[in-house]
């Protein structure tokens, strides 16, 4: 079995893996570094850090454009990210959007 597996791995490479979407909340400081997180530790921390930095950057850009925002939400096909600005950073919520999961109230942004 091990012999066949080796041959197949050599020919076709490893099968692509499916990464689970992050679910939970993250608190970040003003630089976007993670302070606390309830997202599964199996989710890559580097990507989570990038989420924090991008969200903080979004709040910063809005302030620079004279339109400071208290809350932002990014709606993707299969993930909703909502973030609220705090005095020393931001709290970010990540909700995977599956067919079985109820959608958030669309009347509120």
């Amino acid at each position, binding site marked *: 079995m091990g012999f066949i597996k080796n041959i197949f791995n050599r020919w076709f490479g490893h099968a692509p893996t499916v*990464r689970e*979407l*992050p679910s939970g909340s993250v608190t970040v400081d003003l630089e976007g570094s993670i302070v606390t997180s309830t997202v599964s530790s199996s989710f890559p921390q580097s*990507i989570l850090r*990038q*989420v924090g930095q*991008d969200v903080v*950057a*979004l709040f910063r*850009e*809005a302030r*620079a*454009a*004279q*339109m*400071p*925002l*208290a*809350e*932002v*939400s*990014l*709606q*993707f*096909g*299969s*993930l909703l*990210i909502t973030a609220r600005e705090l005095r020393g950073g931001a709290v970010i919520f990540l909700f995977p959007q599956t*067919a*079985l999961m109820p*959608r958030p109230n*669309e*009347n509120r*942004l």
Partner: protein
Amino acid sequence: MHTRYKILLLDDDADWLSLCCELLGNSLPSKPEILTANTARRALTLLETEQIRLLICDLRMPRIDGLQMLAIVRRRFPELRTIALSGLEDEEFRSRAYALGVDLFWLKGEMQRNSKLFVECLESLLGRDTGAGFRGIQSKSLMDIIQMECLSRSSTVLRITRGPLIAKLWVQEGELIDAETDGARGEPAFQRLLAWRTGTFENLPAEPNRSRTIFKPINALLLESAQSMDEEATSGDPEKLESTNHRKTIWKLSQLTREGADFIVAVPTDGKGEPEALGTQSVSSLTHLTQKANELALRLGERLEAGPLLHVAGQNVERQVLMLARGDRAFLVGWPTDASGNLAEKSRKLVASWDS
């Protein structure tokens, strides 16, 4: 001999199934036999074993969802009439369902509110003979479709959807009697509608009591429209061009006011070309914010593999803003905090009508 058709209802909600069974069993004049299934697998088994005429399928279901089911059915049972039901008013669902070739898309809430119309549509689908008529129209312009309806001297209401924009045309015995789209009615609505290059359409039952606002024959209207489009395309006259641009700006402003938005900024995503803005003086700062928000969101979506970006929304005590991309431009729409309704949908509508 009168054929008793069979209808198959597919929904994972048992209460809804029994409610539908009762509604359809009592109200359909042809008294069809109603079968039910609560999973796609069960529905497929019934389709294999029974002579089903019409499938009414819910879109949101576990495991195999409605859209997957409709795709399977279209391939395996091409003769089967299909109706897609959805509890959610989402244009994307509607377009995807029609792209899969469903005969009718209906909202569950609308079905309860307007059950008479739903029953009429259903009866018309059941009664449509297998031998007469083709289904599925591709690569035909709206002009062709309207001409076909008029030439066949039919009476119908054509409901045309282009993204979030909806228009209706009333045809009575081969004559176009009324048109309505986005606040416009009659000839202006018809002229606007002809500028649409893509969309989906469906036939609704005729409304013979609709008051007439269009009196010109259809050929004259089409000719006028074609002429004006041709003139606009070939005209190099700066005065005419200015007047056209002015008309467009007035139209955009009226749309903005009608929807209740504060401002809109349209920014080319590739950085080439000038941004356009209405209702705001802070064009350069908002342009920068739109570009940055679009870049950040796209990058984030790619890293997270979270699917396409639908929109970015933000709010503070004074305003709500919504950024969405369409084609090669990103749009930022500002709304007052007390704006009601589904703002994402309203913004999408505003953005869709920007170039129409």
